[in-house]
């Protein structure tokens, strides 16, 4: 108890010095918390952006559809499957696909028609939030379509323009209908930009004469913490008659890029930890070494080596603890602020950015996780512990006289 009260008293005594040390550590720790949250946000954001915009975490197709897509390779019992997925911790949305041709004025271009379930799609992807001009699809506007950005440019389409679709319907007849552009998407992915032609599922079914079944079901984990591979396995077992693919399998290049990016960021994180470690080490080393003469006096007054050692440790840990609270008080609100107000870099970027054909937003959110807060703190304690070990031992072992004249 005496040690603690000594430590406390010391803490208060050389106030400037203590606060400089505490301030430096607190600052480092706060930056670390912010930094780690930013990294978490970057890692999560890249995946969320790329996967959550349109690709989805998993896609389910009828057998053979992916190799050779056609209107007839369908998932027949989509209602049942959706209900089943809902019950198994997944969120799912059905999609209908067909290829066709869109024409406006003298221009025409091949398109990929997509029928969207307006209620469910929004639960799985954020496509509805990526409208560049105009509006997203609406159930009460059956003639309104949303088209990809490059497609709109190729066909010279603006919001409100008419566009004709020609395709071969499921019964072999020539489907053709006049639509009105309701919205133009932001950059989503190379495929959607160039040929995406979205309509409500009901319109698609009527146009293409597909009364039932869907070509694709796009799925998301309800718990993002579930391991992707495990969830893929679970889905595959759940739906043995269909092809289940996760986004890493669907977009291997993107997955590779993310993995490379993850690895290099982890290396950066380690190096940054090291920098913080050196700072802490430096601050504590100085504050202990400088007081060795003082410790010499204490020893001369009858302090046992271990008592002195314990006092130095307790005192330092006390400083670290104060620093941690300060760091939390600064770093946490900062990180939380940026988790709601993203850092927006889109102003620096001419157009949208894409990785391996998948677009992503130039915005960063911090993501505050247990790891991003606890790891920097633990690290600070660890480094502090190591940092004072040597000077504290030295102070404890030194003869009083040598300590007093120690420089």
């Amino acid at each position, binding site marked *: 108890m005496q040690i603690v009260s000594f430590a406390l008293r010391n803490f208060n005594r050389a106030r400037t*010095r203590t606060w400089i040390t505490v301030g430096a550590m607190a600052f480092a720790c706060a930056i670390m918390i912010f930094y780690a949250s930013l990294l978490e946000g970057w890692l999560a954001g890249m995946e969320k952006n790329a996967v959550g915009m349109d690709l989805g975490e998993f896609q389910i197709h009828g057998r053979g559809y992916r190799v050779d897509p056609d209107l007839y390779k369908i998932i027949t019992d989509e209602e049942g499957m959706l209900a089943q997925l809902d019950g198994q911790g997944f969120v799912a949305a059905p999609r209908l696909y067909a290829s066709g041709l869109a024409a406006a004025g003298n221009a025409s271009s091949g398109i990929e028609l997509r029928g969207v379930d307006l209620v469910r799609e929004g639960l799985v992807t954020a496509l509805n939030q990526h409208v560049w001009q105009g509006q997203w699809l609406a159930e009460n506007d059956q003639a309104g379509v949303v088209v990809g950005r490059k497609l709109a440019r190729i066909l010279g389409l603006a919001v409100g323009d008419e566009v004709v679709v020609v395709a071969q319907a499921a019964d072999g007849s020539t489907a053709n209908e006049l639509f009105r552009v309701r919205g133009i998407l932001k950059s989503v992915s190379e495929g959607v930009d160039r040929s995406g032609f979205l309509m409500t599922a009901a319109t698609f079914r009527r146009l293409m004469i597909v009364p039932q079944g869907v070509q694709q079901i796009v799925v998301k984990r309800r718990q993002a913490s579930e391991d992707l591979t495990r969830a893929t396995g679970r889905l595959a077992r759940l739906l043995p008659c269909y092809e289940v693919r996760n986004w890493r399998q669907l977009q291997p*290049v993107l997955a590779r890029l993310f993995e490379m990016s993850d*690895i*290099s960021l982890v290396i950066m994180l380690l190096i940054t930890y090291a920098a913080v470690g050196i700072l802490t080490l*430096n601050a504590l*080393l100085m*504050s202990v070494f400088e007081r060795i003469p003082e410790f010499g006096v204490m020893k001369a007054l009858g302090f046992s080596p271990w008592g002195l050692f314990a006092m130095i440790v307790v005192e330092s840990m006390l400083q670290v603890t104060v620093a941690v609270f300060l760091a939390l008080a600064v770093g946490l609100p900062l990180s939380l602020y940026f988790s709601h107000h993203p850092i927006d870099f889109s102003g620096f970027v*001419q*157009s949208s950015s894409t990785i391996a054909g998948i677009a992503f937003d130039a915005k960063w959110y911090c993501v505050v996780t247990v790891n991003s807060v606890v790891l920097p703190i633990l690290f600070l304690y660890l480094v502090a512990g190591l940092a004072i070990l040597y000077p504290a031992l030295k102070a404890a072992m030194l003869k009083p006289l040598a300590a007093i004249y120690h420089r």
Partner: protein
Amino acid sequence: MQLGTMAWRTLMRNKRRSVITAFSVGFGILLSVTFTASGDYAYTNMINTSAVMGLGHLSVEHPDYRDTPTLDKRLLEAEAVQQRALQTPGVTGALVRIMGQAMFAGGAKSVGGAFIAIDPAQETPAHNIFLRTLIEGQCFSSGEERGVVVGAKMAEKLNLRLGKKLIFTMTDKNGELVSELGRVSGIFRTGDDSVDGAVVLLPLGLVRKALGYEPMAASLVAIFLEDHRAAKTIQGKLVHLWAQSKEITVLTWQESQADLAGLIAVDRLFNYLLQFLVGLVIAAGIMNTLLMSVMERQREFGIMMALGMMPGQVVRLVLLESCWLALLGLALGVVITTPWFLYMARIGLDFSGQIGTDYSAGGVLVDPVMKFRLYRESAMWIAGAMFSLTIVAGIFPAFKAGRMTPVENLKQG
């Protein structure tokens, strides 16, 4: 006595502290080099990879080609453009190409895709990723007027093998449909299915004839540079060359591949942000040291001032200390960074083991090796930034030292 010498002596009085602080400056340099150099390497790699996918670092094309790349928009004097470009310093290659959309059929199946028509006599694997990634056969020679090189994925879809027929249909300069026959002379695999399933290399002569192009015409001249950073400068020179022609425009890779430029810009900004945060930590560390040292030497400053030193001189003394510290830090930084940098620049860290078992899926487009490359200006920038950071960190302690009056100082301690 000179203030500079005095500052140095002060630093040397507490060697341990000074070395630790200088070490943190040095460490900052190591860190900054790691961040910047891995970025510089990765960006250079991405830019060069994307350049060899068809458009080059600079592309000379018809002004409307970028917005609506139909085959009626062409450069009439592509060969002349190529010759002029090759004479420009900094240009390592200039290739005449026709790029466009086509329908490809083989056997009873067909797929839509994109073609790059090339002159086999001029193309080299260095400027063409598809020739670099051939897995079967070879590029058609100048003599083979109907050779084609297809991606592995398309070959699979259309059931193509070496020597097999590939029929391609495109819209010519007048908007008419034209079909031609090619025979597979090579198959490439980049590892990206969307590329391997869609891109076909065709002979320039055959495509020119099919499209009804003039003998010198092409849709673009892809220009390759020694250093992609020179793109803007060389673009300026080339634009000047063809200033009188309305039919020619020169685009840098940033303009022709805005997506990539955007990605790099965003990544670089994030990188800078992280570096800035780390810089703050290091600056805090330096300030911590200097502040400590100033606090401790209050008495000393009191005596100095009592002996007639002006407060301004005291401030300068402390600033000079941080200056020495910065120089010491830079020297230390060079010492600890050089081996790490050399290792990373020459060998690098290979992560192909870590990123999944099937590394081939990422193919040549994703480099599994983390390597360093540092542009000279980046290195200067780092050195400058670390130096200024140290000086800036010294400002507050310096003024703190200068603000005190001799009497206050003498009372303290």
